[in-house]
């Protein structure tokens, strides 16, 4: 058996052990809150293949993607503006810092008053929570653009639009993506929270509703589905990031998305290791500034 297979088995050992351990324990313990795996599996098949997909999963995903896209648009455009103008940036700082520190779920009642209990109030909450990491990372990215390139572009009288599109945005790209990855997680969380309050469909509603009617295995299927959703979306995001920023990783000789700050770009925690298929952390000290 060669080392790769051994390593692969090693990585799978613990998850399998946890699953088997839980299965054995749950089927013997007959706990009300922790039903055995086969029961959860059966309910999962009944509910999510594909009975409630249209009624709960699709509305949730629609709201989340709408909110996320809006956050990206707003975050990047406002971030460009604030990143390029020192006066605006200074003037906006206290307001941005305050809004960012405000836990987004606290705004749900406000959003309900503003938009009623429809989709738009949920999208609004998602945007209010998810926009900050993108905004702050865009500002940092824009401020970190090589000033020689900017001076050069100015000397050659390259128009502003082209300067933004060809110099600033690509240079800020890695930072923007680091922010977008953080925001993705926040968007999922806020999707669930906003659906738990004043909603009639969606995954968050489903999970809370099952719990309130003590339908425990059904509740677990919802939790597991949310977990899988979070994992899959994160994975998809990394694929997209790797493709869009392929030039950047190639330039830096990195295997995967790394942190945006120059200090850590060369010494990313995984930089010393061989090209690993695992997502390299966007979590290390630099990029996390805008986190939640």
């Amino acid at each position, binding site marked *: 058996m060669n080392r790769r297979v051994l390593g692969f088995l090693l990585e799978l050992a613990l998850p399998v052990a946890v699953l088997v351990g839980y299965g054995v324990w749950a089927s013997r313990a007959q706990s009300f*809150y922790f039903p055995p795996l086969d029961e959860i599996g059966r309910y999962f098949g009944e509910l999510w293949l594909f009975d409630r997909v249209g009624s709960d999963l699709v509305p949730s995903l629609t709201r989340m993607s709408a909110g996320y896209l809006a956050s990206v648009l707003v975050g990047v455009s406002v971030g460009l503006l604030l990143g390029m103008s020192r006066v605006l940036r200074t003037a906006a700082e206290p307001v941005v810092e305050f809004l960012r520190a405000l836990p987004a779920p606290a705004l749900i*009642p406000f959003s309900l008053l503003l938009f009623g209990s429809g989709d738009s109030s949920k999208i609004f909450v998602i945007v209010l929570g998810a926009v900050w990491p993108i905004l702050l990372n865009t500002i940092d990215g824009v401020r970190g653009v090589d000033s020689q390139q900017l001076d050069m572009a100015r000397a050659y009288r390259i128009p502003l639009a082209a300067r933004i599109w060809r110099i600033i945005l690509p240079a800020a790209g890695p930072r923007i993506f680091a922010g977008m990855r953080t925001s993705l997680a926040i968007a999922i969380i806020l999707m669930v929270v906003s659906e738990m309050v004043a909603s009639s469909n969606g995954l968050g509603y489903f999970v*809370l509703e099952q719990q309130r009617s003590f339908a425990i295995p059904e509740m677990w299927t919802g939790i597991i589905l949310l977990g899988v959703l979070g994992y899959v979306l994160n994975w998809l995001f990394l694929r997209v990031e790797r493709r869009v920023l392929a030039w950047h990783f190639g330039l830096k000789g990195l295997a995967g998305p790394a942190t945006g700050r120059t200090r850590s770009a060369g010494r990313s925690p995984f930089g010393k290791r061989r090209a690993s298929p695992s997502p390299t952390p966007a979590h290390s000290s630099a990029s996390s500034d805008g986190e939640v």
Partner: protein
Amino acid sequence: MSLEGTATVTSAPRGTARANLADTSGSLRRLLGQRWLRDLGLKVSGVLVVLLALEACSRTGLLSRDWFPPITDTYVELFKLAAGQPLWTEIGRTLSGWGLGIALATVLAVPCGILLGSNATAYRMTRVVIEFCRPVPSVALIPLAVLVYGVGLEMKVFLIVFVTFWPILLQVIYGVQDVDPVVRDTARSYGLPAHARFLRVTLPSAAPYIATGLRIASAIALVLAVTAELVVGAPGLGQSIVVAQSNANLPRMYALIIVTGLVGWVINLAFQAIERRLLKWHPSQRQEVAQ
């Protein structure tokens, strides 16, 4: 993090480096002082513009008064609340869940992270589990937590511990893995015993990562505490926001939202200040000041 790097620049001369520069920096300091003043003016005017715009929108009816009372009413309510006891009790309830959760998560995550960070086999074994648990939307566990722990402090603490465990753990792992190999090998070849290597090499070099992990975790924990109060009605700030809303006491609702934001802001500032003070010696902080 501060939006504006110059904010830290202006505070830099207060440090020890200033002594050496004292004679040459007279005019420079005046310039910085003016700039500092101008920035302060800009910040204050930024806040004022937003507040005035909101006030104007509400007074002129651009934003309906039914759901957006003038911001002055909100502030009157805010001061009334701040003078009374109940507000501080609610803040205390929210913060007690927050503090307990963070403390427990730190106590659990730091040793685990040090173990996983320094042992490649252990890290590989747990990698899949960590990668799977991390992106799971934390709030999906609220119903489970309510079932198991009921509606109270335990539920909040459980949620916060479960969720903030991961960012702290990951930061500790990366921090421990990021020890400069030259330093590590030097310490080893000089024959430093294992516990001294750990205390003098590994821990200091991982410290900034751990600090960042704690800062991230503190923000997440506050979000979770407020969410738990809001969704399931555990006592605290979130619940009082909902109560104010259902009583149609809008100024109070907005005042409480502002209070929640201020709590988050103060927490963030406090963590940043502690980080800056404790890690003054570390390059990442030095670089930030020198930018």
